[in-house]
């Protein structure tokens, strides 16, 4: 294998990986406040991208994306308020099943609104043929956009959860809801807020990857599974680790093509998910100490 080819694989792995990473980060936000996995996370991406695509012919691209993010945030809040907020002491399993139901609902609604055509947002800079050459490998500038946006999101989130009051309060809610209320934290509001945050990040990610992956109404589920794998591999709740894990999965997938038939590409991530769940449920980077203190 020539060096150029190797590098090309590497880059495509990084690209796909950063998409998984961003989905995984969305999972982590909600997990961090509520201890639940929101299986509608993939749908947030597609919904954001769809809205962005619909608005983009009429508005400048940045404005279309911002509006798409805002609209998805509102929908995220509505979903939480309508389906989850009124439940008294919901069990984790019950909420997870609700999110699966919500994901089906959103998917079917999108099919209704946008039919099954494959669409794509236009490239942020340049076109689909323009490319940047690095070490003899060609990559689309959109890849750099995706990488950059994921990096910014993760850094901001890390800061948010560690150092801001709301971020800490959200973590407190996931650690112990009753104790959080006794500190004066409105735990229900924090849950709504976490849904809004992860919906917004999902929508932004969906817009960023749309030019590369195209967007179709039912792509959310497969993205969600890959993102979920990345979140588990990194250790649930840890955004930085989720990014690393997302990149690892992307790279494994990209390089698997050179030794396995293309059809097995998706199987790589699923196999990895099973292996982690069997042997190291705290994730690659999750501290065992911390996971021993958590309830699953």
């Amino acid at each position: 294998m020539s060096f150029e080819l190797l590098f090309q694989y590497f880059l495509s792995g990084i690209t796909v990986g950063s998409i998984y990473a961003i989905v995984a980060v969305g999972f982590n936000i909600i997990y961090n406040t509520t201890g639940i996995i929101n299986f509608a996370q993939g749908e947030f991406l597609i919904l954001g991208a769809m809205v962005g695509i619909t608005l983009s012919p009429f508005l400048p691209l940045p404005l279309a994306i911002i509006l798409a993010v805002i609209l998805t945030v509102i929908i995220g809040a509505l979903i939480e308020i309508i389906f989850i907020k009124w439940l008294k002491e919901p069990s984790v399993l019950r909420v997870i099943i609700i999110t699966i139901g919500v994901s089906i609902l959103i998917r079917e609604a999108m099919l209704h609104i946008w039919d099954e055509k494959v669409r794509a947002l236009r490239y942020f800079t340049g076109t689909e043929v323009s490319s940047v050459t690095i070490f003899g490998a060609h990559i689309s500038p959109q890849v750099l956009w995706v990488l950059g946006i994921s990096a910014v999101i993760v850094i901001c989130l890390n800061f948010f959860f560690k150092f801001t009051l709301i971020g800490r309060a959200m973590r407190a809610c996931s650690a112990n809801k009753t104790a959080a209320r006794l500190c004066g934290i409105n735990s229900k509001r924090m849950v709504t807020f976490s849904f809004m945050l992860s919906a917004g990040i999902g929508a932004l990610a969906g817009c960023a990857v749309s030019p590369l992956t195209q967007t179709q109404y039912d792509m959310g589920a497969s993205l969600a599974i890959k993102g979920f794998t990345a979140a588990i591999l990194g250790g649930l709740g840890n955004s930085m680790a989720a990014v690393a894990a997302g990149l690892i999965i992307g790279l494994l997938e990209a390089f698997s093509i050179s030794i396995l038939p293309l059809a097995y590409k998706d199987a790589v991530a699923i196999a990895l998910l099973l292996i982690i769940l069997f042997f190291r449920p705290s994730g690659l980077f999750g501290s065992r100490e911390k996971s021993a203190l958590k309830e699953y």
Partner: protein
Amino acid sequence: MLKILNLEAGYGKLRILKSVSLHVNPGEIVTIIGPNGAGKTTLLNTISGIIKTRSGKIVFNKQNIQQTAAETIVSMGCSLVPEGRQVFNTLTVKENLMLGAYLQFKNGNKKKIKLELKEVLKLFPVLEEREHQLAGTLSGGEQQMLAIGRALMASPRLLMMDEPSMGLAPLIVKEIFETIVRLKDSGMTVLLIEQNARLSLGIADRGYVLETGQIVIEGTVRELLNNHDVQRAYLGKDYKGIDE
């Protein structure tokens, strides 16, 4: 400061508190003793708003709080140190303490928080050494101190404690009870729930005995200590009459 009138509360169909009435005056340590399952924890959880009141009145600082949300009750100056400590395991000690002052933070009262933090760390120097450790890795005694410290960070006027001695070594229990006395000396009002009657009557001003959801005996500590029923049931002194 706190006045409870004919309070009833419970879980589902279970009626646990049956017409409980009691009061706490400013600057007092009031203790409620009673056996397992008497409703002691339910009582504190109801006052702090975690459990809904069925009927009756809870008046805190002249305001009715029986229908108020837990978050609001904290902001009025009534903090609970919950049973079994309930610290935020996956957060550091410092973050735990800071979250105790969540409401002040929200109001932008940063100077006061710093002072409060200093006071709490002076009260429990161990916590300063462990500042950056995850709270879940602390020992039971340290977690109890953290839980008390976190409640104090909200600068409450009434501190309610649910069995602070639970599962702790006698030496640490002694330390914690000394701290409670020091808090009282600095003007704090304390409502203390304990199974260890000897300990809590040792530091309290007044006490109540709660049995099967009802207050059966009340009075000053001296009265309780001299009460035959209390002596027999909670202090382990048997009737002399049986042997004679």
